[in-house]
């Protein structure tokens, strides 16, 4: 028979209840997660079988007529795709920066690409775009699909149906996983899958449309939850951690893991920058830069550059030159990427009329704050672009 304490526990715990808005939101999200309905009738299967038979016959005839020149169809869900260079150029091409094997710019649903293999894209349609490590492959988002397309050579890719429109994708440094964000009627959702397009995992049902960032060891990645809070998801264990808010960053707009270790740079549109060690209890660095949509690029394991407004700020977390240096830019920074050795930068600069040009510049050295940014050359003119420009340098 329950004593008084147990009765009080039942009463107190039983009175806990969720808010109505939370309930409605959770209900929508849960119903949205339902798997597609199972087919009740065998009729569609019959139709599919008949279509396959027709395709097989006509495909054989066509193959015979073309000397076997058509791409092969592989096991579901993998398909072979033509390499990216066959996309017709409707916009000016982009130039490959010095030392890069591939360079891409993505903005407003379009993508520009230049690779050492000769692959070119110029304003091709893509809701999300990401190069694989080594730029062997790229993933291209469109409507409700993510495709893998060969960059360095022709090869078998995959087509993966997703639960919305892909808006951001991040390939793990080891190439084994891809984290991606899709836009759905219920908000943005985050998934990750194997690098071959198999085994989708739902990670979070409410996220911000910010590109995830993988840790160097490919075991975890950071993302921004719907409330603007930064989370770190362990892709192996499936667990998720919240990153402490130590610098007043309320609505993270850009995140980037360092190329080695657990340092994670977080920036918001108000100019606040937080650099936190997610693996150790090292002190968190709080910085303040110019307001504006931020872009992040690590140039060393402990040096990160933040571009926002009309400046780029280089933060050094240790060493003789520890501190921050600000270098002004000739226009508003709309995108930023660093070369593999960290000595060169690619900057997307938005002019007052909204047009964006991509330039290659020297990474500013410390104590060069008073010097103007040294520009090497223009890489592309993207025309009028309203959103952020995502630059990828491989």
């Amino acid at each position: 028979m329950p004593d008084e304490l147990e009765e009080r526990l039942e009463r107190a715990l039983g009175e806990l209840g969720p808010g109505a808005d939370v309930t409605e939101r959770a209900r929508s999200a849960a119903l949205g997660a339902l798997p597609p309905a199972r087919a009740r009738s065998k009729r569609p299967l019959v139709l599919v079988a008949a279509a396959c038979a027709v395709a097989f016959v006509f495909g054989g005839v066509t193959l015979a007529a073309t000397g076997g020149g058509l791409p092969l169809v592989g096991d579901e869900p993998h398909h072979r795709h033509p390499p990216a260079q066959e996309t017709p150029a409707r916009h000016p091409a982009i130039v490959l920066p010095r030392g890069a094997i591939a360079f891409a710019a993505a903005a407003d649903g379009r993508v520009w690409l230049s690779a050492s293999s000769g692959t070119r894209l110029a304003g091709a349609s893509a809701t999300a775009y990401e190069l694989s490590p080594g730029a062997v492959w790229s993933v291209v988002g469109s409507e409700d699909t993510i495709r893998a397309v060969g960059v360095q050579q022709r090869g078998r890719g995959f087509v993966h149906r997703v639960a919305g429109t892909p808006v951001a994708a991040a390939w793990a440094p080891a190439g084994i996983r891809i984290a991606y964000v899709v836009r759905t009627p219920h908000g943005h959702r985050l998934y990750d899958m194997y690098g071959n397009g198999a085994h989708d995992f739902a990670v979070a049902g409410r996220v911000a449309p910010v590109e995830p960032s993988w840790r160097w060891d490919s075991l975890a990645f950071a993302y921004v939850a719907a409330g603007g809070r930064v989370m770190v998801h362990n892709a192996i264990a499936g667990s998720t951690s919240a990153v402490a808010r130590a610098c007043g960053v309320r609505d993270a707009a850009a995140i980037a893991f360092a190329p080695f270790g657990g340092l994670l740079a977080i920036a918001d549109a108000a100019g606040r920058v937080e650099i936190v060690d997610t693996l150790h209890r090292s002190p968190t660095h709080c910085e303040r830069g110019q307001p504006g949509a931020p872009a992040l690029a690590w140039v060393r394991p402990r040096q990160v550059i933040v571009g926002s407004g009309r400046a780029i700020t280089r933060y050094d977390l240790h060493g003789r030159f520890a501190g921050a240096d600000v270098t002004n830019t000739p226009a508003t920074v709309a995108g930023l990427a660093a070369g593999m050795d960290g000595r060169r930068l690619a900057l997307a600069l938005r002019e007052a009329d909204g047009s964006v040009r991509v330039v290659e510049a020297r990474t500013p050295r410390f104590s060069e704050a008073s010097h103007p940014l040294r520009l090497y050359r223009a890489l592309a003119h993207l025309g009028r672009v309203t959103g952020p420009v995502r630059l990828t340098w491989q």
Partner: protein
Amino acid sequence: MRTLGDGELVVRARQGSREAAGELFARHWPGAWRVARAVTGRRDMADDVAQDAFERAFAALGRFDRRRPFGPWLHRIVVNRSLDLLRSERRLLGPEGLERIEGEWRDQAGEDRELLAAVAGLSPQRRVVIVLRYGLGYPPTAIAALLGLPVGTVNSRLARALEDLRRHEQERDAGRA
């Protein structure tokens, strides 16, 4: 109209019935949220955990064995997600963050406020069994099955948790006196 059991609702939800899935949600959402809230001790975290658990459960309905009860399966997901999140918060937020977590119980009104604060102060393992036993009414054998623990371990944790809570109450009364 006949009230359908959870198993039948699961079957219909698998076949694409949003009404059936909605009914499952309506039945189990308050309990799932209560578990998440009581285990994590935080309203915002409970919102995320409970929603995430439901999304995972619904996404995995195709693999669910309909002969087994739906509620304990869902509550197990909620408990595991809550503990995962607490562990990671402890690592990332440090002791200051945990103090903040426990402090949020103070928004509870009435005489049970301090009791809930005491529950939040229990270790996560003891908190879980208390919540499942008194928040959802599971008997110890069901809790043992749900958590994959021996019944003796569950009974032991329950007894020690109640002992902790009684001690807390006595100390509080002594302090007032």
